[in-house]
């Protein structure tokens, strides 16, 4: 919370994409368990493309790609993204099929602070694959008052 206060001291409440509530690494682990159940999650096949350092946490571009032939017999069924410090651990869940041809999804996310992001892909054989990345969010300096 202190991290993103601003020069004039009046904007702390408006700057943060989120309020003081916060997810934790445990909450993220719990959210992941809800998606994967008892299945093992193997690191690999997933690429999580995020800038390592971003000037503003409000809009962080993110692309998840999964190595897969994307055929009816062998494809990615879902891509889930989680974070450990925003108020809620879930970022998004995308459903895919062989119709996508390519298992790549892009969007932009909010990060209240520097933190770890985890992407998990579920393949059509019921297996789970993952990748994670750490993002550093630069502290803002001159921001505006609440308007």
């Amino acid at each position, binding site marked *: 919370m202190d991290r993103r*206060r601003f020069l004039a001291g*009046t904007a702390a409440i408006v700057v943060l994409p989120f309020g003081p509530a916060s997810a934790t690494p445990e909450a993220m682990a719990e959210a992941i368990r809800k998606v994967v159940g008892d299945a093992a999650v193997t690191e690999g096949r997933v690429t999580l493309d995020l800038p390592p350092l971003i000037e503003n946490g409000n809009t962080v571009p993110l692309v998840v790609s999964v190595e897969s032939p994307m055929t009816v017999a062998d494809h990615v069924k879902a891509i889930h993204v989680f974070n450990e410090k925003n108020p809620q651990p879930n970022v998004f869940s995308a459903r895919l099929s062989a119709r996508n041809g390519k298992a790549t999804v892009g969007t932009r996310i909010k990060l209240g602070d520097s933190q770890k992001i985890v992407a998990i892909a579920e393949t059509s054989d019921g297996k789970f694959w993952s990748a994670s990345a750490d993002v550093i969010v630069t502290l803002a300096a001159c921001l505006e008052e609440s308007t």
Partner: protein
Amino acid sequence: MRALLAAVLAFLAPAAAAQQVVGDAIPASLTGQPGDAGRGRAIVANRSVGLCLLCHSGPIAEERFQGDLAPTLAGAGSRWSEGQLRLRIVDGARLNADTIMPPYYRATGLQQVARNFEGKTILSAAQVEDVVAYLATLKD
């Protein structure tokens, strides 16, 4: 003439005795009391109270992204006496008219000040003393 006198008096009044400048220093505490270095560290680290780390870096490891517009605060206590630090914080312009250091304990002679800060100093006398006490501990 009377208005001018009044203005001068108003300027000197709040801490006239305490702000006695001797050479390049204000030797006496603004409050008559020594400051608290622990509280001073917290003020320096706070980006909306002390604002120091926006421009300076300093040995405050937990605060990432420190500024580089001004010299590091590390070693400030070796380079300057408490009195010298005090004058530089109170109103660095008295030593160098071109300084970018904001005047932390001067509320006059400023232009276009936001209404909610009008007539107020950036730090209180006690806060200045706390910061002086903290910076004095930063020896090389």
